[in-house]
């Protein structure tokens, strides 16, 4: 058993302190004596490379071959970068480029790592050693010296004595981060109540329902039975600012069912038109787009957490973690036969937030 120099010393100190405390009075923490004796190291076994010079040379050959292979891999990666360039018109070229550069770099790093580990395991000295952990607590001398240094620094700087300087310094440090708070607040919505932003969408009375992504308005007569149409408010495709924010709130799924399949609440009878219903596409759970519509069962499935909504019964939740039905968009038909919204959604769309009524 070989021991490091300082390891042996630390172990001796720990042993003596535990012996001192054996007769300590009741209530004092005592380091329990280990009931299982330290078995020590298993007998040292010489490696093949220690016994057989041939094996030693073989291991050496393996290690330097691996290091040379690593050079080959690096050079290969450089060559591959030039030989397989990425051509913008050919997506296939990306694959070859990444594949061969990746193979070269993998070979370079892996051969380096395996070679180093093999060197360490098979050729470097393999004696076992004990390096005891030193105590956390410093010696009394060191602790007294540290207190002395602090004391001296306090005396020399006058930190404890000149209280006006000390307190003004603490005050300056407290005020210093405040500009960051103000600057970051400036990145958020200005002069707008976030609750209003979450509660209102682009839909207004008379806004036509339009196709996503083309923005062509939809005629009621063109919506065939069993259709599921992805809808945006007309004018959204022409927005130059905040287009995605508006789309994220106002996306709607339009479906046409047989009118006799719809179970309509009396107060919402005039919210649909001839079996055509429109519901918010934003899940009330955490806001994924709910659009997996099954036209025979009239179920809508959210792909994120498997919430299911029954379109024939005002999109009430029939399965999954969502707690509220999808908000319905009241629709009607204008004089030219186009589908229009009667108003905005009557409740905030999407997941719950703190101030939601």
């Amino acid at each position, binding site marked *: 058993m070989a021991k490091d120099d300082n390891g042996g010393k630390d172990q001796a100190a720990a042993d003596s302190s535990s012996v001192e405390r054996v007769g300590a009075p009741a209530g004092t923490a005592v380091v329990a004596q280990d009931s299982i004796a330290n078995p020590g190291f298993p007998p040292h*076994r010489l*490696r*093949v*490379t220690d016994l057989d010079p041939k094996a030693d040379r073989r291991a050496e050959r393996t290690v330097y071959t691996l290091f040379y292979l690593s050079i080959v891999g690096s050079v290969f990666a450089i060559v591959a970068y030039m030989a397989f360039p990425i051509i913008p018109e050919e*997506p*296939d070229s*990306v*694959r070859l480029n*990444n*594949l061969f550069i990746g193979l070269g770099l993998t070979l370079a790093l892996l051969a380096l790592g395996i070679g180093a*580990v093999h060197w360490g*395991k*098979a050729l470097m000295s*393999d004696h076992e050693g004990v390096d005891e952990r030193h105590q956390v607590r410093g010696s009394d001398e060191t602790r007294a010296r540290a207190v002395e240094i602090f004391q001296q620094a306090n005396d020399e700087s006058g930190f404890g004595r000149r209280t006006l300087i000390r307190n003004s310094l603490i005050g300056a440090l407290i005020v210093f981060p405040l500009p960051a708070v103000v600057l970051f607040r400036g990145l958020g919505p200005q002069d707008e109540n976030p609750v209003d932003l979450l509660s209102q969408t682009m839909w207004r009375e008379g806004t036509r329902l339009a*196709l*996503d*992504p083309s923005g062509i308005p*939809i*005629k009621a007569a*063109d*919506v*065939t*039975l*069993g*259709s*599921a*149409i*992805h809808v945006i408010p007309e004018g959204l495709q022409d927005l130059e600012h905040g287009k995605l924010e508006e789309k994220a709130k106002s996306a709607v799924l339009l*479906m046409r069912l047989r009118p006799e399949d719809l179970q309509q609440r009396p107060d919402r009878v005039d919210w649909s038109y001839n079996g055509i219903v429109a519901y918010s596409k934003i899940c009330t759970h955490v806001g994924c*787009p709910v*659009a*997996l*519509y*099954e*036209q*025979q*069962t009239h*179920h809508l*499935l959210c*792909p994120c957490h498997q919430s*299911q909504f029954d379109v024939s019964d005002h999109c009430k939740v029939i*399965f999954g973690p969502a707690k509220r039905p999808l908000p319905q968009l009241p629709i009607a038909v204008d004089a030219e036969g186009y589908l229009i919204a009667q108003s905005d959604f009557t409740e905030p769309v999407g997941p719950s937030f703190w101030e939601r009524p």
Partner: protein
Amino acid sequence: MPEIKTVTSRAGRKAGRRHPMASVALIAIGLLFTGGAYAMFSTSTARAESDLSSQQTIDEGKKLFAANCATCHGLSAEGSPEGPSLIGVGAASVDFQVGTGRMPLQMSGPQAQQKPVQFTEEQTRALAAYVASLAPGPGLPDPALLGADGDAAAGGELFRVNCAMCHNVAGAGGALTEGKFAPSLAGVTEAHIYEAMVTGPQNMPVFNDMNITPEGKRDIITYLKYLENNPSPGGFALGSLGPVSEGLFLWIFGLGSVVALTVWITAKSN
């Protein structure tokens, strides 16, 4: 002198080419070619047009229908508790359901499964002709829209808006509720993709020509065929299923090799 010799022999060959029989043969070949092409063209249009409306085909389809479909769909396709009415579903619906092997139904379950196609192309057409003769409905798609020669990028956008939520962004398919699923679109023929969009088979919604224009449908088909014929730029697609297959691969092979290397590094050398 070799130069003179070659010149004379070339002149001789030229004279041979201008032989009167050559022009006769050329005209004959040209006539054969145009005639043959015209014949091929006229038969192909005739198959698409006249087959479905000829009374003989309809009668043949009626017999096939009575023997194979009437048990569930009723003797005159009026429907029964076991199967829906087929009046007004159109030839496109029949060509999709029978042509992909979904009908006749193998067994009842959450949804009709694909199985080996049971009818020949002519029989499928006859069935389609019969069902189309009952009431007007979506007809077979125009072959000009099935060439997969549209705008793949525009088709990709339409696919992501309208189809990707069920069929996966790479058309690999996905799960629906209660055992139903949206099938993978790899290997589906252009005509069947088009017919599925027009008719909305089973739980798939209908995408009529107002919702996705015929050109848009052609672009979607182009996009799907582009995905099919071009390898994934990212290497192994692992079924294009996203985090499920990719995560599984990493957990097994990535972490597996990390564990193996760790075991090797910490083992004693012998």
